[in-house]
């Protein structure tokens, strides 16, 4: 028993002492959780980003409230002002300086859009009022606002979608002002969603279980073969066998140490998710704990499988690298998987990560299960069984001569 505990402790402490394992098994999952939450957690919230946009109004002023070009200009100018919370404005808006020739400004800013210095340029062209008056009278397709974008730039696409929203609102204001649209009879629009039991989950609640599984997965896939294969190559394992410790007890101790490492990964991620990003998801249910344990065991078994089929540590790392990408990204850890080509769909169906992610998220109530509960347990268990069966037959403890 002392030997088993000693091996477990050694495995855990070695992992914590090694800067490499500390980075990949602990720091990197924390980094990934932070980055993905910082990027995708703020999407759809007010002012997640600030875009550099130029605006030029070439239409001469018209006296009175019917100066609709000024209404359009004002609507965009509103986006260029910081909100009440002092956040950056949605648009960093540039307009011609006093006395500057608008046409020159237009030419210069069009070039700035082309090379990516501006996300977009809005031009209210000359003749805007004339075309608008005709459209209001039912005689014409409407007044155009020209929008210059740069293809291939996401900032341009984002700015364009915002411009579309502003133009939609401006249409309502203008048509209300001329008595053609009654805002009191406006449409009732609602939002609903499928895919989770309790409405829209926070992004962090969806992501956290995925990153926890990724951390377990990396520790199993890289950590286990790393320790066993390098230990074998450097003849470290060989030294164990001259002690009273046998390979069975070594494996038990090693597995306990690995599970302790997974527990540490889980605790660190949970603390960060909860206290830094406000994750509400609770892992306390027996089903969720069961899935976490199953995941840790399955990935540990994968690590043993790689250790048993690789002849060298170098080859083991190469096999882990090749398995890493398809298993991680075709398992729905970071985003749900939809329609895929047949080959990738096949990989997805046999991938234990798919079932573990699905089962864990369903047990946490952050997304509805897409496969039966039994399958989410059976497929990973079958994989664990196969991996352990192969490893028990093929795993060698000493280098071949």
């Amino acid at each position: 028993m002392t030997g088993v505990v000693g091996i477990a402790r050694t495995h855990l402490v070695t992992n914590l002492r090694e800067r490499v394992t500390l980075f990949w098994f602990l720091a990197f999952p924390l980094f990934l959780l932070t980055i993905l939450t910082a990027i995708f957690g703020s999407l759809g919230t007010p002012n997640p980003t600030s875009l550099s946009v130029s605006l030029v109004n070439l239409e001469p002023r018209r006296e009175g409230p019917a100066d609709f070009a000024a209404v359009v200009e004002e609507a965009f100018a509103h986006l260029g002002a910081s909100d009440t919370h002092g956040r950056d404005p949605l648009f960093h808006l540039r307009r011609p300086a006093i006395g500057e020739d608008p046409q020159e400004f237009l030419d210069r800013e069009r070039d700035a859009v082309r090379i990516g210095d501006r996300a977009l340029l809005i031009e209210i062209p000359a003749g805007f009022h004339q075309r608008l008056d005709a459209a209001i009278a039912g005689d014409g397709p409407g007044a155009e606002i020209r929008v210059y974008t740069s293809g291939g730039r996401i900032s341009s696409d984002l700015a364009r979608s915002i411009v579309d929203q502003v133009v939609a609102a401006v249409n309502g204001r203008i048509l209300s002002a001329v008595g053609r649209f009654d805002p009191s009879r406006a449409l009732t629009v609602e939002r609903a969603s499928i895919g989770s039991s309790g409405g829209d989950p926070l992004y962090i609640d969806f992501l956290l279980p995925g990153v926890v599984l990724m951390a377990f997965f990396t520790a199993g896939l890289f950590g286990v073969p790393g320790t066993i294969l390098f230990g074998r190559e450097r003849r470290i394992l060989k030294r164990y066998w001259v002690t009273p410790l046998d390979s069975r007890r070594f494996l038990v101790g090693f597995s306990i140490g690995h599970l302790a490492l997974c527990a540490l990964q889980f605790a660190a991620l949970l603390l960060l998710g909860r206290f830094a990003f406000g994750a509400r998801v609770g892992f306390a249910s027996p089903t969720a704990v069961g899935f976490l344990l199953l995941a840790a065991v399955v990935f540990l078994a994968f690590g043993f499988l790689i250790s048993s089929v690789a002849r060298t540590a170098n080859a083991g790392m190469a096999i882990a690298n090749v398995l890493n990408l398809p298993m991680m990204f075709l398992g729905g850890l970071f985003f749900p998987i939809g329609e895929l080509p047949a080959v990738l769909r096949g990989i997805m169906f046999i991938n234990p990560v798919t079932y573990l992610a699905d089962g864990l998220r369903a047990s946490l109530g952050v997304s509805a299960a897409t496969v039966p509960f039994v399958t989410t347990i059976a497929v990973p268990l079958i994989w664990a069984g196969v991996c352990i069966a192969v490893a028990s037959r093929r795993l060698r403890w000493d280098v071949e001569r």
Partner: protein
Amino acid sequence: MTAYRALLHAEWRLFLRDKVSLSFTFLFPLLFILIFGSLMGGIGDADARIGIVAPGDDGHRLERIAAETGRIQPYPDRGGLEAALEGRRIDFGAIWDGDRLTFLYDSRRSQENYAFEEVARGIATRFDLDLQGVAPVVRTAVESVGGRGTTKWLNLVVPGILAFSTLSAGLFAVSGHVTGMKQRKLLDRMIVTPMPRVALLAAVITVRLAVVYLSTLITLVTAILVFRLEFDVHWLHYSLFIPAGTLGAMGLGTAIALVVRQPSSAGNIANAVSMIMMFLSGIYFPVEIMPALLRAVSRAMPLTYMADALRYATGVMDMSAARFWMTTGALFGFGVSVLPVLARYVVRADRR
């Protein structure tokens, strides 16, 4: 010259034997393109796929308006629409019951729903006007003045992956390969022979430049053939940038090798640095959607500029020619200026 040829031959064989380097250089970018391309190849397509449940004349109006902004798919009832949404055959749904317009989303697609909600808002506004018998009187006319007007998200990702391949190959050539030779005491043995250090460096650089050029080319051609992506590659720009980028990354690798005391740690640090850069340089997530702090960090990452330069060289994105040449020149200049440091302080016998 004989030494150079012999070392070149040895370097090439070493590279082919190193399974990790081989998989990182050739397999990693290919796998990423194939997996990401299949998962997200449709992102950036002009049309969202909209499922509609809307009986009666008003329903036809809604279908007509939605068809102007997306590809519509009518369903007889909400159940059918939900099943399609669940199976990702549609991006979101619109249900009109004669009184209320309800938009239905898949809560698991939180990374994309914000974009679908914007499309939905546009449809709701048009439908609102249409129900009161009026049409919009102000509309937008969009003109693309730079790059390709119909670029998909994957078009942007592919040059990003090429840039990442270039960066990691250059980084690991020094902080991985050279430091590995040092750790295994290979350098000790080589340096006591009449071989000039310059010949060793030249052999390492030649093999890496050839390998990076070949690997990026294979990745690019795979993306074009498998996902039918269109690139307007400016081959002179491309062929000059890849070597310049590799040299620049080797310079960065040298800096890491100098800072890190243990030769074995250099590879690990290079691995960590490249991975952090990958997430912060707009390779997989656009820089524009990042919070202000991360955008500022992104601007300090060389990989951001490398990805932009390769997007320019592949015709995906426009930038000023001066900016492209400045990026290329800076990487080349940095790489070349660091070479003497590499020869003197890194390619030397290990301290005893």
